[in-house]
């Protein structure tokens, strides 16, 4: 059924934008960051605020959400996260969970616990019929936008000087420093971009996934699934993992609603048992 397929793809694309930043920090930088959802939440809330209070058009909110979350990510990375790179995974888990707790309670305190909503522009409402299926325009928009983003990010990572600097910095920070790469800056920028993307995902997802203070906790598990199933090779894995999970989740719930919630977990377990390193991993992983 085409509609379901499209819904699944849209959902998967959304997951990808939300999680791809994490797959870089966690997969490449080997930093376990459970607080990734906080940046999505920041993006979602700033969008809701801009639209509902200041009347900023939705499409303009998207880049603003990206910038806001990126700035937030940059500041936190410089002041806090940076100190955690060299620490044990357990410390990282403890620290980032602490950040999540604080963010959840703080948002609850400042804004309240109700669901946030955004008003979509008229052109993104409604549906179109393609190939006998009926698809929401907003979902088409998400697919198109996220598809472009995925290609852009991949290009940035593979083709640009920054991409190669990042890979060098990840492979061996000491050698990279020796080659004159400013590893700190590279990591900071990467973290900021990842956070920004999460914020953008939050802004896009508010309408479909809902946005409330518990968002970072609710979606933490989904992010982790995307990253582990995708593997640590970079964003290609995360991309395909998101798509597969999105389609499997939506399709599963449509065709066999009785076992709907199992499918995504079962899929993850099967992948991890067959390929412990995820679908796409560098062939000679550490």
């Amino acid at each position, binding site marked *: *059924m085409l*509609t*379901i397929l499209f*819904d699944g793809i849209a*959902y998967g694309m959304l997951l990808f934008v939300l999680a791809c930043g994490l797959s870089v920090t966690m997969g490449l930088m080997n930093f376990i960051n459970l607080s990734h959802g906080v940046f999505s939440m920041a993006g979602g809330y700033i969008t809701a605020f801009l639209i509902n209070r200041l009347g900023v058009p939705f499409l303009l909110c998207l880049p603003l959400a990206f910038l806001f979350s990126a700035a937030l990510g940059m500041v936190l990375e410089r002041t806090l996260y940076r100190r955690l790179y060299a620490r044990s995974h357990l410390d990282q888990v403890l620290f980032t969970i602490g950040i999540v707790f604080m963010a959840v*309670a703080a948002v*609850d305190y400042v804004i*309240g*616990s*109700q*669901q*946030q*909503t955004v*008003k979509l522009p008229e052109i993104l*409402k*409604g*549906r179109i019929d393609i190939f006998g299926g*009926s698809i*929401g325009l*907003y979902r088409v928009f998400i697919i198109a936008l996220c598809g472009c983003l995925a290609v852009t990010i991949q290009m940035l990572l593979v083709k640009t000087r920054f991409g190669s600097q990042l890979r060098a910095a990840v492979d061996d920070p000491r050698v990279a420093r020796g080659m004159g790469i400013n590893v700190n800056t590279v990591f900071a920028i990467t973290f900021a971009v990842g956070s920004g993307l999460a914020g953008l995902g939050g802004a896009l997802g508010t*309408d*479909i*996934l*809902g946005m*409330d*203070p*518990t968002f970072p906790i*609710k*979606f933490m598990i*989904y992010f982790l699934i995307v990253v582990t199933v995708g593997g640590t090779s970079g964003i290609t894995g995360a991309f395909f993992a998101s798509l597969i999970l999105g389609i499997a*989740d*939506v*399709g*599963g*719930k*449509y065709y066999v*609603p009785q076992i*709907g*919630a199992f499918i995504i977990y079962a899929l993850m377990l099967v992948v991890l048992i067959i390929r412990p390193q995820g679908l796409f991993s560098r062939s000679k992983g550490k």
Partner: protein
Amino acid sequence: MSNHTFSKRVWLAAPVLAGLGLLAPQLAQPASAQETVKIGMILPMTGPSSSTGRQQEAAAKLFIQQNGAKVAGKTIELIIKDDTGAPDVTKRLAQELIVNDKVSVLLGFGLTPLALSVAPLATQAKVPQIVTAAATAMITEQSPFIVRTSFTLPQASVPMAEWSLKNNIKKVVTLVTDYGPGLDAEKWFSETMTKGGGTVVENLRVPLRNPDFAPFLQRVKDASPDAVFVFVPSGFGAAFMKQFVERGFDKAGIKLIATGDVTDDDLLQEIGDAALGVVNTHHYSASHNSPENKVFVEAFRKANNNMRPNFMAVGAYDGMQLIYKALEKTKGNTDGEGLIAAMKGMSWTSVRGPVSIDPDTRDIVQNIYVRKVEKVGTELYNQEFSTIEAVKDPFKAAKK
């Protein structure tokens, strides 16, 4: 190595000291004066159901503020605790409130399992347990000390089915959240529907933690019913409504009917125009036209940063009302059995309309209103247009 061991040894003793430090202030509580009646209120203040906690806390405090902390010569003291939505915590807090704080009444309970966890304690300690939120029908059967001032889902769903049958809606799909109240709503709506000659084509259950309604809605659409009957817990309504409209159900001629949880007053403004025209049945709307309600809504908004009270707030407000009335009747005697006896059959004019406590089931008897979401000025409200008076919980009525 020896250094290591030493530090561990100190580390062993540290928490004991720290623990004593933390506990000390709690022990220093003054012995409660005879004239004080303590009411323990347990609510989910954090986690996914925290909006329930917030509304109920605000309402209970407002009640005390409006009516004074003195009743029948006793001073009322309200102790609020957060159970985080975890039943074992609820139970422990209830136990501590009973044993340590010596509360006379327990109040609150945001979700069915939370209310159920305390039921045996209420029985054992003979402390009235007033359920102000949880809405699965069978809760009040779990202890003779449970009284409810919220509502039951059968109470809200059966009138919806009856209204549908009268308004030529014959073919329905139900879509409910997959937990106690949802299943209650599904069962009672479907039964009433089938009995009245309608058909329920499909019963869909959405997992409690479901990020995307899309696949379920698509299934509804494929079944092309006259209407889809929906129950989702308060808080999930907004996301659902958005997707409902986005999927073009209105154009496909599928109506949305629901219990009032979906068009929760607290969220209606956020849901926006998508909700316009949705017909639903419930026991309270912030726009309920009565002098009592006008005063209540205004005071509530003033005290809470313009937050609109919803049906949760009313449950707690009436819970406090019930306690006050019962204390007056017992002349300040806080014996549990006496209080329960006083509460049975109690009736008063609530902000939601006339209500009473069914002496047989200890469940609330109240009007159920059929409402339609409409715009009043700039704000959206559930406008009541039909009243079914004095509805008892059909679940218990059916057992007789």
